């Protein structure tokens, strides 16, 4: 149809020669004029009716345009299908509207021309049209149209002239309501009221639209596209975004193709096998297995674990029954203990610890972490007024956190308190046992008892006194078992049992002689025999090596004369007598019992002698000794020999034969000394009332100087049987017992604690206790008193 309209336009403009069309055109123009003029409306209508059949196809555009107007003006919603179609068509054709306007303008142009010319009739108009150009023949003989010059006068071009404008001015249109026109145009002609909705509807209704008309061309066939009602429906649904097909369910209910529903008809018609009705052999086998296991007790019937568990929670036993100390790992840092509370933590502290106002304010203002103490010292004048401490749980919790969360670092403390290095005093219970009471008194000696000794088995006590007797006692009962008078004029100055449990040899010194005694008839026969054998061995040696002794005699005087003491003594068991040059005061055995050292203080060069038992040989180790020899002793484990002179103690290495150390106790006159069984400590007793403890590792000066006695100290002695005890005997008639613990650790000093003063001996002519000896195992000691008694303390 668009093509049609374009064709027509071309005709209206460019083919004025086409006569038939001219006619139509003229009519069309007139028609247009008529349509605008009231007077000829009737005729025009008729003509139109007449020609309507002819122009129908061409004048569609106008109609459409009208319809457009109508669509704009009437708000009537198309209800039926025909109107819908129209609407669609209208929408489709909106693009063509400006074109039509142009054509209508053209028609107006013509109309104005005609009015200008003032010729109302069609003929002159035709003339004028003809006059518009002249036809000449061109050079080729073809007709050539020569158009007249256009006279460019005013109004010659009214292309921008306004459309018919109403000239009624500024009056309301309602004044014309009663009239068919609505005003007058510039030429004074009535402007007719445009057709309104009903009229147009009536017109459109009168035009019948063929069924299925769409106004579209089928691109495939070129024919007008016709759509059926169903197809339209589909289109409509598509445009509404609906599902086009009727009755389509997008969400159908699920259909269970395979269900658990049992079908009536089985799939297989096979008969049930027999095994389904017979008890299973396999199962029976397994059941029997279980039954057997239960019978045999391999499977225990289930028992719900009941209250036993509760008991188990508290099950305790001695977890440390077989404890073995294990040294801590080097990297282990034990958790530090909580420090003890300070003075100001007291509920009722001394008033100077209470904070004054400023301090209190400062504490309260400070942040919790900045405070030096987590509490503020407060004073409560009675215990009942003490409130609960509200940070208690928090502090304990923080301690827990510290224990498991805080990295531990070992820091070297700068200000080491010297007090903290002091050893902690052991409690009295730990110091036990020590001798406290006198258990046995041994009385028989006349005059002083000079020396006592307990035999290595711990059964016998030997004592020697001023009366020249050596007596042997039963230690526990105090019964005298044996005695011998060694000398009439000399006192027995020293008695010492030989170390070693298998033999019992007693060495006693009276005057210049040393007697080696095997007490007769109080020992078991085999012990006695072995003791005698040891003593007798030396005789053989002396006999086989006469040359050495012979040499000795030729060069100088023998250091000692070994001989048999004589029959009446030998009968008692005194087997060997060795006589040295001066009176022997001290005897000490070597730990193996092979050697014994004697000291005779007056003897100058021969003051210290070492006797070899198996060879009956005596040696004088020192050619000249500085000072007066007081005592001599062997080191308990090393080949070292200690000699005490009047105010120093020297230690000699026997193997290398050289001086090792000189100890300076700082005493005026050393009376005796003893070496600790460990060998590193020495106690020294002096006549100037002092007891000195020497640590050989520390220095040559005493580690401790003890002055607890009022009179001279005669004897000192360590316990040899493993107890950390030592004792001293003094002229004031008392013994003092000390705890002296030596630790293997070099860093730790020995702990010395005074324990007990044992009094009992009477002081006679300013002499109190002369000698002391410890029991080899028990915490017992025996003292020899100037009052002629010996006492056993336990």
């Amino acid at each position, binding site marked *: 149809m668009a093509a049609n309209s374009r064709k027509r336009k071309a005709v209206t403009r460019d083919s004025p020669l086409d006569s038939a069309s001219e006619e139509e055109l003229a009519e069309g123009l007139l028609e247009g004029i008529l349509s605008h003029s009231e007077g000829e409306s009737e005729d025009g209508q008729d003509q139109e009716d007449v020609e309507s059949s002819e122009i129908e196809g061409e004048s569609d555009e106008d109609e459409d345009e009208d319809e457009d107007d109508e669509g704009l003006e009437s708000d009537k919603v198309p209800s039926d299908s025909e109107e819908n179609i129209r609407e669609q068509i209208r929408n489709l054709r909106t693009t063509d509207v400006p074109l039509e306007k142009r054509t209508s303008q053209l028609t107006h142009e013509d109309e104005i021309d005609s009015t200008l010319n003032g010729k109302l009739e069609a003929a002159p108009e035709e003339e004028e049209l003809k006059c518009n150009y002249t036809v000449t023949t061109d050079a080729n003989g073809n007709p050539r149209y020569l158009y007249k010059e256009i006279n460019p006068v005013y109004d010659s071009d009214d292309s921008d002239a306004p459309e018919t404008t109403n000239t009624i001015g500024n009056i309301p249109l309602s004044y014309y309501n009663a009239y068919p026109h609505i005003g007058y145009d510039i030429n004074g002609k009535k402007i007719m009221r445009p057709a309104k909705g009903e009229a147009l509807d009536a017109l459109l209704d009168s035009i019948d639209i063929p069924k299925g008309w769409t106004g579209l061309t089928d691109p495939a066939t070129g024919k007008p596209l016709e759509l059926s009602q169903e197809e339209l429906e589909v289109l409509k649904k598509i445009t509404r975004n609906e599902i086009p097909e009727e009755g389509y369910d997008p969400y159908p209910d699920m259909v269970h193709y395979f269900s658990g529903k049992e079908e009536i008809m089985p799939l297989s018609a096979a008969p049930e096998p027999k095994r389904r009705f017979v008890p299973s052999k396999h199962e029976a086998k397994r059941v029997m297995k279980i039954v057997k296991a239960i019978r045999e007790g391999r499977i225990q019937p289930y028992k719900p*674990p009941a209250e036993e*568990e509760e008991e188990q929670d*508290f099950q*305790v036993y*001695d*977890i*440390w029954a077989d*404890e073995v100390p294990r040294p801590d790992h080097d*990297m282990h840092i034990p*958790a530090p*203990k*909580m420090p*003890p*509370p300070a*003075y100001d*933590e*007291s*509920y*009722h*502290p*001394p*008033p*100077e610890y209470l904070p*004054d106002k400023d301090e209190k304010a400062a504490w309260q203002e400070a942040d919790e972490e900045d405070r030096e103490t987590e*509490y503020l010292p407060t004073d409560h004048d009675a*215990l*009942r007024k003490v409130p*609960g*401490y*509200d940070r*208690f*749980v928090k*502090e304990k*919790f923080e*301690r827990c*956190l510290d*224990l*498991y*969360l*805080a*990295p*531990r670092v070992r820091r070297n403390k*700068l200000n080491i308190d010297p007090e903290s290095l002091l050893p902690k*005093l*052991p*409690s*009295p219970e730990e110091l036990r046992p020590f001798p*406290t*009471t*006198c258990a046995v*008194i041994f009385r028989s000696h006349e005059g002083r008892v000079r020396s006592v000794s307990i035999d290595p088995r711990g059964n016998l006590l030997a004592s020697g006194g001023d009366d020249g007797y050596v007596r042997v006692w039963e230690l526990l009962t105090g019964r005298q078992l044996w005695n011998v008078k060694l000398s009439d004029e000399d006192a027995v100055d020293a008695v010492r049992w030989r170390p070693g449990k298998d033999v019992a040899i007693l060495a006693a010194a009276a005057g210049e002689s040393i007697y080696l005694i095997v007490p007769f008839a109080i020992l078991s026969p085999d012990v006695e025999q072995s003791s005698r054998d040891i003593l007798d061995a030396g005789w053989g040696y002396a006999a086989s090596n006469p040359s050495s002794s012979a040499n000795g005699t030729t060069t100088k005087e023998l250091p000692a004369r070994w001989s048999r003491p004589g029959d009446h003594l030998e009968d008692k068991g005194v087997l060997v007598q060795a006589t040295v040059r001066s009176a022997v005061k001290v005897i000490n055995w070597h730990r193996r019992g092979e050697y014994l050292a004697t000291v005779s203080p007056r003897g100058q060069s021969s003051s210290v002698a070492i006797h070899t038992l198996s060879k009956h040989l005596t040696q004088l180790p020192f050619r000249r000794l500085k000072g007066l020899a007081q005592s001599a002793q062997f080191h308990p484990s090393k080949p070292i020999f200690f000699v005490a002179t009047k105010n120093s103690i020297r230690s000699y290495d026997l193997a290398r034969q050289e001086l090792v150390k000189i100890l300076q106790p700082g005493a005026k006159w050393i009376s005796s000394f003893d070496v600790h069984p460990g060998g590193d400590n020495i106690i020294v007793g002096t006549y100037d009332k002092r007891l000195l403890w020497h640590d050989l590792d520390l220095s040559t000066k005493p580690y*401790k*100087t*003890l002055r*607890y006695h009022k009179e001279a100290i005669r004897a000192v002695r360590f316990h040899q049987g493993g107890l950390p005890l030592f004792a001293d005997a003094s002229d004031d008639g008392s013994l003092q017992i000390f705890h002296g613990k030596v630790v293997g650790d070099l860093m730790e000093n020995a702990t010395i*604690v*005074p324990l007990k*003063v044992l*009094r*009992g001996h009477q002081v006679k002519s300013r002499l109190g206790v002369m000698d002391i000896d410890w029991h080899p195992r028990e915490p017992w000691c025996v003292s020899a008193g100037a009052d002629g008694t010996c006492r056993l303390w336990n």
Partner: protein
Amino acid sequence: MTRIKKKGTSGAAKNYITRTRAVKKLQISLPDFRRLCIFKGIYPREPRNKKKVSKGSTAATTFYYTKDIQYLLHEPLLNKFREHKAVAKKIGRALGRGEIGDAARLEKTHIPKIKLDHIIKERYPTFIDALRDLDDALSMLCLFANLPSTPHVPPKTIALCQRLCHEFEHYVIVSHSLRKSFLSIKGIYYQATIQGQDIMWLVPYRFVQRTGGDIDFRIMGTFVEFYTTLLGFVNFRLYTSIGLVYPPKFNAKSDEDGGELGAFQLEGKVVPREDKPTTNDDAPQAITSAEAQAEADKVAALAISEQEKEDETSTALVKADSEENTEAIDTFETTAQDADILPQPQASSSEIASLFAPFTIYLSRETPRAPLEFILKAFGCKRVGWDGILGDGAFTTNESDPAITHQIVDRPALPSESLPQVPDVAETETRGAAPPKAQWPRSTMPGRTYVQPQWVWDCINQAKLLRPDLYAPGAELPPHLNPWVKPKKGQYDPNVPLEEQELEGEAEAFEDDEEEIEGKVSDVEEVQPTKDGALAGVEAIIDRDSSVEAGEGMDVAGSESESSNSDSVSDQEAGGDEWEGFDSEPESEISDTEAARRQHQRELEAEATGSAVQLAATTTKSKNAEIRKKAEKKRKQEQEEKERLKMMLPRRKRKLLERIEYGANKRDKEAEVLRKKRRRIENAKRAAEAV
């Protein structure tokens, strides 16, 4: 050529492991790791060179020792944790399905029981090691024994803690190993010495503990779990070591009645001997009447005296000589000065253990029963009675029992007229349920000593019975001192008189300072607002000074001491003005000359007026100043000498020295402040006494 060693493959980088890596290595969750560390006693370390260990990163991290973690890998508890996790999953699933019964069954039967025995043995190879670590355990368990039960702290745990603590206390009582105790504001500290190990623990006062704030009870619970196991084993060992059966018989009913210690009955392993210490054999016999009790006491006393006699005779046999030989250690006296004095342990525990043995002690209702009962029994008191309200297990609940020798009261003494009269108190000597006689504080029993609780603590700390009149009810108690602090050199010691501690010239300096302060009496008032007596004393001093200063004569002072405060203040201010120039710059030479000039001027004035009082006052002042100046000069010289020496030191050593000195200086300063306070208080007291 050797291969180039890769960084971070040896040394510190290898020795330490971060916590995250440790947790990953052990394949357990962080809470489980935490538990494991607590049980095994594994703690983080601080590497010496953090940068090397953390391979350059500077983020703050926790490091563990790699060997420790490797050692954890073999821990059987790890498997238990994993099992527990599996069961927890099952339980969770069952609960999710709503199968409560299943969940309960799983929880009851399948949750693995964690046993810590092997860890105890591992951490404490010997019993002594365990004792050494008992401090924290006891403190913690005592706290938990006093906590209210919450979802975090189940009642079962609390009961267990209580039981263990009481058992331990019983051991301490029986073995008499309690040494010291201290009442602090936090709680009560106890110290026992068991097998040579000092064990100190803290028991809170019986109040509801504040558990708010960020306290994680899961961590504490883990610790408690470990500590309960430890203390169980320790108790077992302790009990068996003294021949008692463990666990002791527990009387639930008595415990419900508040028996506490009395709810346990100790038993010997074999046939109980005569002297077997059974702490509460009296407890079950309900003592109905005072007379019956008195009879029982008599019998007991007879038995004791007989025993003593026997002892005497037996010892008499042993004693051969006139000297008495006791088991105790003798004290050694040195006979000359040049000897070393060896320290000896104090009186043996057996003496201390029987400190309260001859007494029958009654605890009043308001006293804390549990600590008193524990301490008294630990120090030999077998007969401790208390009011029936305080719980079960008392020796007697009858306050008027004539056997009672001491009564511990913590109530102020009230004037008798303020108390309502009790009718008919005299004739109540009838049998049976005698109506209670008028008791403290209405009347006192003749022959009974009334003391405040602090007496008990001070007695045991000093290991001797103290004068009870100092601790009488209502009396101002002497300060309660801590028995553990051993003051170092230069530290303030409240036990020592002030004069012995003060530095040279300090007292004089203080006096001058005090006068300066006296210029502003209001200051003094602020410092000592409560101590009225003290304030009065200070005023008295002021009065005397000012009156002398004004040159009015002594007769005014007596009357003025009673006069109002404002009077004396104004007087003082009048006097203070005169002194200002002198006090403001006491050290400078100029001021001294100025003072001398003024002195001269004053003398002249005095001469003119004809009074001679001033001279005496000024001479003491100047003497003080002289002493002080001398001391200060000396100190200054020493300081300079020190500085000079310090200059000679190399820088490193100097710094070290400074670090050491820092602590000492701090200590000195603290001591000085305390001394100053004490002097002020003492002066005030003296002045108050003088008035």
